[in-house]
């Protein structure tokens, strides 16, 4: 099913934000919409968006490739993205990530065996005063979790695990 069939109102609302002669502007919001269900963008989604916006599929792919929050490969249901950039690193984020990684038994870039969580290391998230911190990205959006401990993180993962069932 195409995005316009699946989410007619939302697609219409997105297109209405931009001048009709510049509908290409809708490519980023539509890519987010495409990720909603599975957390990643399929080939069919790219072709669908290209058609909707009078772009080529290659153009859409190059947008997906440029921006780090767009994914066209399947990963865990939740991407747990820990900031280890300079501000957070000065406040213990690297050690936090190492401990969390040990507890989960996966390295950054890897996914838990049940497919629930992919652990990732990211750049500054504009929360440098609240390290250690991470965001959780899923198809439904992105949430911040600040001033975290490894214990609190494991609890959060348990909650996500229950919700996913």
């Amino acid at each position, binding site marked *: 099913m195409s995005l316009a069939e699946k989410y007619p109102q939302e697609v219409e609302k997105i297109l209405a934000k931009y001048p009709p002669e510049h509908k290409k502007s809708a490519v980023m*919001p539509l890519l987010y919409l495409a990720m909603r269900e599975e957390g990643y963008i399929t080939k069919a989604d790219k072709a669908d968006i290209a058609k909707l916006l009078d772009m080529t599929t290659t153009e859409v792919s190059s*947008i997906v490739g440029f921006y780090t*929050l767009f994914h066209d490969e399947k990963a865990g249901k939740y991407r747990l993205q820990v900031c280890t950039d*300079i501000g957070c690193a000065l406040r213990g984020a690297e050690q936090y990530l190492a401990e969390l990684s040990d507890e989960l038994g996966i390295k950054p870039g890897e996914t838990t065996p049940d497919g629930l969580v992919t652990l990732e290391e990211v*750049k500054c998230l504009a*929360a440098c005063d609240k390290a250690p911190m991470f965001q959780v990205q899923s198809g439904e959006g992105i949430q911040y979790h600040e001033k975290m401990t490894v214990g609190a993180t494991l609890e959060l993962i348990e909650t996500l695990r229950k919700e996913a069932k």
Partner: protein
Amino acid sequence: MMKYMLLRHREIPNLNQIDVFLKEDGFEGFKKALKMDTNAVTDEVKAAGLRGRGGAGFPTGVKWSFMDKNNWPHYVVANADESEPGTFKDREIMESNPFQFLEGVAIASYAVGANVAYIYLRGEFWEVAHFLDEKIDEMEKAGFLGENIQGTDYSLKIYTHLGAGAYICGEETALLESIEGKRGQPRVRPPFPPSQGLYNKPTVVNNVETLSSVPYIIANGADRYREFGGTEKSPGTKIFSLSGRVKNPGNYELPLGSTFRELIFGEEYGGGIIDDKKIKAIMPAGASSSLIVADDKALDTPLTYEDVREVGGDLGSASVIVIDETVEMDWLITKTLSFFAHESCGKCTPCREGTYWMKAISERIHAGEATKADLELLHDVAKQVQGKTLCALGEFSTMAVVTSIERFPEDFEAKVYE
């Protein structure tokens, strides 16, 4: 006496609720602007001496007056990309004092004759964007957005647009490319956005904090704004995002002209260094900063656009990262370089290749696997990148490298062998 102009939510609970905001003189600036000639609004902002809070410190009113009046429509774009490591002020404004920011967007739009404004938020601000969408709806219902605002013939729509994880989209022309549905790569300038910006139409791009300063100026006048704080050339208050090795990191709103010492050591502010260690260096503008040697002269330097330059730095977005004696500079630059190598958009060679090489060499130095000649090479590469890049990111990537090697040579010499 009011303490805050920008972080007013710290004194007024629930300021992000429209009824509370209205009770606290909300939208008075916008209502007043709507009765003024558009040029008079711009002139008031000019007279206030407000300077852009996104990094470059360009006079805001002057920028508005550059809009090409022979080319329509006009656009206003709020820069809410906030991705400079160490910066986290715009997010607090948007979450806790959103209407003041939106009022600023509305006044700017009225002043330059724009009927559509976009707010470009970094993709990670997903929740903030949805929150702002609600606030925009509330404003529209209250008659401050939409058609015929407050019975005038002025109409305005504000839309949010989410980026998707790319620091370079904070650079204004890359940002405009990104809204146009392209890869976020900077444009060659000139033309500047006020002549050809979004969809090649005249566009004002302003930072969130800049726009949030505007309602006070219009409601109370330029003179009152200048009295509120700051210096002749750097008037007003500024939010300092304080992070790194301080006891109390966070956002602090201070008049421009306060000192690093007040900000970092003041009881009400940073509260001093963790474990009372010795302060070593200051990065006043996030990862893009020069490293300022934190001696008494630097600590007593007034935080203004001019004075910070005197001690070899730039105020920039005032994202003050504090470095203490426990931190080694060779490690620090592996961090900044890993950031810039990751964020280089790849459009021009000196930046794309330079950040890659600098990162590789810095990592070898930090690992103790490099020679003195490598250290010289690193300094050399950085110097060669300077002045040769299409946008400022390339330049930014060299600042910490060059200044840390020049000002803290012992940290590097201890790591390299002959």
